[in-house]
């Protein structure tokens, strides 16, 4: 039986209607990632589930209880579902351990010592046992979010709701939080996660909800959503094509600036690390070891090289185009790059990419 069932959920604010008509179910033990463009009701949906927002109409059944029933014991229901916020919302006046102990001691009647021991156990799970006696303000963002997760777990909830848990974090802190969440997912806790982390959605969730413009457009396993989306809206979101463009108009070009721009693009597009590294290595090798030396030998002051790198499939694939048509004018062939088997560049290129084609002075290849 489903632990959560949502029927015809509608939420109106005075100026905007973030949820028009949402129907969904979640089975016990499922890990649901809720993805979609910003500002399309994902967070509102999550906040309706534990009634931080009151729906305008519709039904939300959690664990057999109608959350919209005026007689429902909301406080008791909320104890069954923890929530992790984008901005952590740790209680700043309490120590880390006290943050975790507050619920169990005050709401579950747990003894202080027992609650403290529990808090240490949970902190150990999220890797922060040594921070029990710190104040939240003494922690980094990633550490705060892990404490918030431990605080949610302390109430032994059936369901844990995550409202964009990594959006307020620096990139290097995202992974520490995601790994804790993956760990939880593997242990069979029912989780609903509003996220922009496509990799997490793809790797850790049992099903993915695609939400857009106040509606749930498509729900299905990650393989379906990320590889064979059924709805056009989902397809457009998943396969949105993004391109990085760069041109070199001088043999004395700014190499560090180009690589920094490329790296920033890869990060922004959530390109998988393997693919991102491949793209960077390929571009660096071809440019530094072949194109620029060749241009110098042939006295080509303005080589006019144009790069275009496009990303698709949520960061699992990248297509690279290098336009070197000006080299033909001075009689330098591009074929040498891949043809010479004993050259390091050639080997590298073939190792990273399998389908290299050269046509009319334009090199095309796919990475990933």
């Amino acid at each position, binding site marked *: 039986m489903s632990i959560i069932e949502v029927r015809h959920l509608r939420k109106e604010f005075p100026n905007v209607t973030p949820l028009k008509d949402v129907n969904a179910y979640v089975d016990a033990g499922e890990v649901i990632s809720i993805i979609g463009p910003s500002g399309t009701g994902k967070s509102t949906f999550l906040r309706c589930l534990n009634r*931080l927002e009151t729906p305008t109409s519709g039904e939300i059944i959690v664990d057999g209880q109608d959350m919209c029933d005026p007689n429902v014991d909301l*406080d008791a229901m909320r104890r069954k579902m923890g929530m992790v916020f984008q901005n952590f919302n*740790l*209680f700043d006046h309490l120590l880390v351990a006290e943050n975790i102990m*507050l619920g169990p001691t005050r*709401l579950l009647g747990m003894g202080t*010592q027992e609650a403290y021991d529990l808090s240490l156990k949970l902190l150990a799970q999220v890797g922060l046992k040594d921070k029990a*006696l710190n104040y939240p303000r003494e922690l980094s963002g990633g550490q705060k979010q892990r404490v918030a997760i431990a605080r949610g777990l302390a*109430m032994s909830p059936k369901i844990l709701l995550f409202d964009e848990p990594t959006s307020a974090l620096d990139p290097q802190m995202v992974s520490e939080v995601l790994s804790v969440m993956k760990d939880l997912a593997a242990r069979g806790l029912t989780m609903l996660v509003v996220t922009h982390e496509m990799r997490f959605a793809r790797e850790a969730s049992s099903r993915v909800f695609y939400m857009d413009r106040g509606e749930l457009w498509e729900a299905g396993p990650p393989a379906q959503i990320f590889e064979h989306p059924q709805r056009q809206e989902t397809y457009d979101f998943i396969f949105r094509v993004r391109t990085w463009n760069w041109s070199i108009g001088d043999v004395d070009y700014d190499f560090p600036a180009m690589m920094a721009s490329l790296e920033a693009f890869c990060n922004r597009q959530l390109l998988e690390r393997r693919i991102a590294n491949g793209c960077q290595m390929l571009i660096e090798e071809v440019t530094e070891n072949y194109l620029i030396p060749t241009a110098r030998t042939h006295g080509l002051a303005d080589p006019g090289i144009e790069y275009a790198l496009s990303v698709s499939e949520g960061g699992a694939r990248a297509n690279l185009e290098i336009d070197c048509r000006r080299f033909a004018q001075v009689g330098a062939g591009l074929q040498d790059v891949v043809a010479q088997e004993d050259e390091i560049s050639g080997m590298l290129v073939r190792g990273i990419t399998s389908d290299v084609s050269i046509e009319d002075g334009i090199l095309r290849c796919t990475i990933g």
Partner: protein
Amino acid sequence: MAFASQARGLKVTILFALLLALLVAVGSTGFPTRALAESADEQTAEGGEATEAEQEAEGGEPAEGDEAATDEESEGEPANADEPTAGQTATTQPTATTGATPLEYNNIDELRDKKIGMLNGAVFDQLILKNFEGFSQKSFKYFNSNAEITGALLTEKVDAMITDLPIAQLTVNKNEGIGIMPDPLMEDHYGYVLEKDSDLTAQINERLAVYHDDGTIDRLTQKWLSADDSAKTMPDMDWDAPNGTLTVATSLDSEPMNYAVGDRPSGLCLELLELIARDLGYGIEYRTTNAGSLIAEVQSGKAEIAAASFSITDERKQQVDMTDPFYDGGVMVVVRTKGNTESDQGFFSGLANSFRRTFVEEDRWQLILSGLGVTLLISVVSGALGHVLGFVFVMLRRKKEGGLADKLVHLLESLLGGLPVVVILMVFYYVLFGSINIPGVIVAILVFTLLCGSSSGSIMWNAIRAVDVGQTEAGRALGFGDRDTFTLVVLPQAARQFVPLLLAQFVTLIKDTSIVGYIAVQDLTRVGDLIRSRTMEAFFPLIAIAVIYFAICRLVAWLVGLAAKRLEPKEGPRTIKGVEL
């Protein structure tokens, strides 16, 4: 660390207190010090002593034939600028006591473009406007006590003081550098003030007639206007009062008519009234207030009789009943004498005299202590109740933002915030509670509780609203109810912000209560006024009161600092209550 900064706070406090003490010294010995001499006799007796003290203070300028002083010559650098001063002091001293010094003005007509000081509520301004050409309302400045007018006259804030004969004489006797114009402006007759159409008026008139005829009034007049202070005592109030008790409003600032000896209301006007009350079978209970409020006391029914130097006028008779006269005097003009700007008393002996008069004589320190007690009582009680009330306001507003309670609190806040405190105080005392006999202290506590409640309420409210809404959401999402979320999560965080502010507000409250004298409450400020009116000294008591206020406020501010420090998270090993770490 913490100790060091506390000690520094204390040091700063002491430094400020010393600075203020210096101010007192300068204030008491600078140009206005002519106010210091109490009587001619005393002055003569202290003359020699004062000169010596002054010389010491000025670095040892030798007096003629004084061999002891010449020894000090080598130590002190004789300042040339001081030379004429010392000489002048010596020469002016004998003339200062003669009373024959010429006046700055000798005739009322010379005062046309000058400022004239008079008591608030007196009718001298009408008298002058009616009878003399060339004066306008702008010629007058109004004061709450004779001591204030005297001070203003001495510091040239006004050029003349208009007052009644007995007060004029006493004032001139007790202050140097002023004298009375020879001709009275007019004759004047004093009567008691009663509520319009009071039954008592005729009975009092009857007794007054008897006392006129048998010479009692003459005897009393001689007693209270004489120079001999030792005879000026009031009989005990031990007679039977079968007809009940009369509440008599009076201001204790008009020696010799109505003033205080110790805390016993005394004077010609009051002794005579007590005789009459005894004859009529009434007891007497005094209410003291500002001279300007006396008639309002009678009109609002807070007192049956107002006893002070009230001139009998037709205008007054339309508002209230006035008895037949109990004293026939005149309206006199007091002005400065010419020249004579130098003090004839030494720095330290003058200060010591002022100190003795302000604190020691007639056990006035007890009066000051009781005033301080009243100030602290009002501040502490209304501070405590106010914070409780403020919290109640917060809880009401929390129930429903924009709801009825919220709107009411808002209305109260804007009402209290939009009125001067003294006006609120007087409205409460004379209008809202006008017909109920309720002690002024209670009304003061009520008003300051409301004021404190409204401001502490909004301080708390703002601090609570400043706590991130995410904190509330996190509490609710954990499963805490509305109240638990508030008390466990929001309030502790808001308290860190508002508690130091509330404590600091207490200092403001202590200062704000200084206006309760307007509703006849004898707090520290009011006591200072009373002492000023008794000693006829314009400055020393004022500055003494200032020093006491300052000391109290600094002390409280220091305590507030300590309390605020305690609220901050402690350094050192952290513990959780009830947990073995």
